[in-house]
């Protein structure tokens, strides 16, 4: 075999090899990625969340504090708006609620950091205690009580002590030297 013929045969053989291999190279990147994913440890949702945070522990704490404060501010704003919304003037009905009106969930909330027992008493429960709860132990005690439109006097009982000046109240009344809070549910407010 002359050198020219050998070179030609070698080139054809290499050409065929490359042509065969080209088919198997298609999708190689995706296959490698898939293979690597199978070998890498699977991330839990909490790990993925952590990847979003700052790389250092101090940075992460700072980031979480900002997120927490923002959430608390939105929560407070939501409660405030919900409370105020219940006092907005509604359309005047032809027949007053002396007949029938839907109850509304009214939020009673009181901060009592070291309290062991907190309850609300008022003319919606015959002035007998309805307990408030603090499920996450942050010292903020809450209860949702369904009330029909009207005027309600109430006070909190914190570890057996009367606490009648709720900052969320619409007004206060006093009897026997003790204040009670008043809330209006439904109704008007912008002048008859």
């Amino acid at each position, binding site marked *: 075999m002359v050198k020219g013929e050998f070179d030609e045969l070698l080139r054809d053989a290499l050409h065929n090899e490359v042509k065969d291999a080209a088919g198997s190279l298609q999708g190689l990147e995706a296959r490698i990625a898939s293979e690597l994913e199978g070998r890498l440890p699977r991330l839990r949702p909490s790990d993925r969340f952590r990847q979003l945070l700052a790389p250092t522990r101090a940075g992460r704490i700072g980031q979480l504090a900002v997120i927490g404060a923002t959430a608390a501010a939105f929560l407070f704003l939501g409660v405030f708006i919900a409370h105020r919304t219940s006092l907005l003037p*509604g359309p005047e009905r032809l027949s*007053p609620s002396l007949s029938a009106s839907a109850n509304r969930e009214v939020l009673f909330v009181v901060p009592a950091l070291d309290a062991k027992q907190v309850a609300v008493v008022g003319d919606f429960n015959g002035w007998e205690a309805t307990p408030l709860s603090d499920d996450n132990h942050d010292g903020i005690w809450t209860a949702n009580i369904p009330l029909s439109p009207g005027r309600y006097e109430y006070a909190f009982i914190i570890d057996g002590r009367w606490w009648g000046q709720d900052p969320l109240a619409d007004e206060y*009344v*006093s009897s026997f030297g003790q204040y009670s809070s008043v809330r209006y549910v439904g109704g008007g407010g912008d002048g008859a």
Partner: protein
Amino acid sequence: MKENSRRIGCLFVLIGLLSLSTIGSAQVSIDHFSLALSALPLTSEDRILAAIGAGLSQDGFPAARMLQLTQQIVTIPGSVEEKEGILILIARTIEEGLPADGMIEKGFALASALGEGLPIKAIIQETLKWFTQRAPLSSIEYGISRRLLLLRAVRDLLFEKEIFSLPPGAPQTVPTALPEPRFNELLLQISDEVGDYLDGGGSPFEGEVLRTQVINRLTRLRGEVILGSDVTLIRDNITASDLTRVALAALSQPTE
């Protein structure tokens, strides 16, 4: 001999009196109350009966008078809620370990007002608040009397202004004749506001302040509890001096 006969006579009289009182208290049992109360669909019947049962076991509990009140409450017109409220006040007195005779008499006064068609639910709630505030029993009883005086004084004031209550089903021929629930709501709110004002140390002579508070309260309730036209009716007809007169009447009259 004569002295001995006298002593024996006194002894018999004493035994007779003791027997009578024993028979008297034995005549009223918890079954009588249970039977009387079975005519009402009460939500706190067990609590009321338990308190009356505790009262019956105490010395000096006016059982016959309590039974009389219970029977009266069952028969008078009025809402079950308000009737039950009167019984709860007496139950609360007994539960607190306080003598119930004064509260039973206040129960008669409240029942009488309810029988007249007066709305007493605000007075009942106010009294329950005073109990929870641990106010002295004598002050609570005085407070009930004063609130009843106010309720009647405000009703009379509304009548004087030709604001009337229509019987159920009667057509409204004039704007000042209101269906009973609307009239009673105004009566309740105005008298309760005057009562709160006085309890808070407000002067009856500051009629403008009192009137402002009354109108503010009605306005806040406007829409779903009180009709706007009823608020206007009060604003146009009730003056500061009217409310001063009502407050003074409640303060100066002897309580029931």
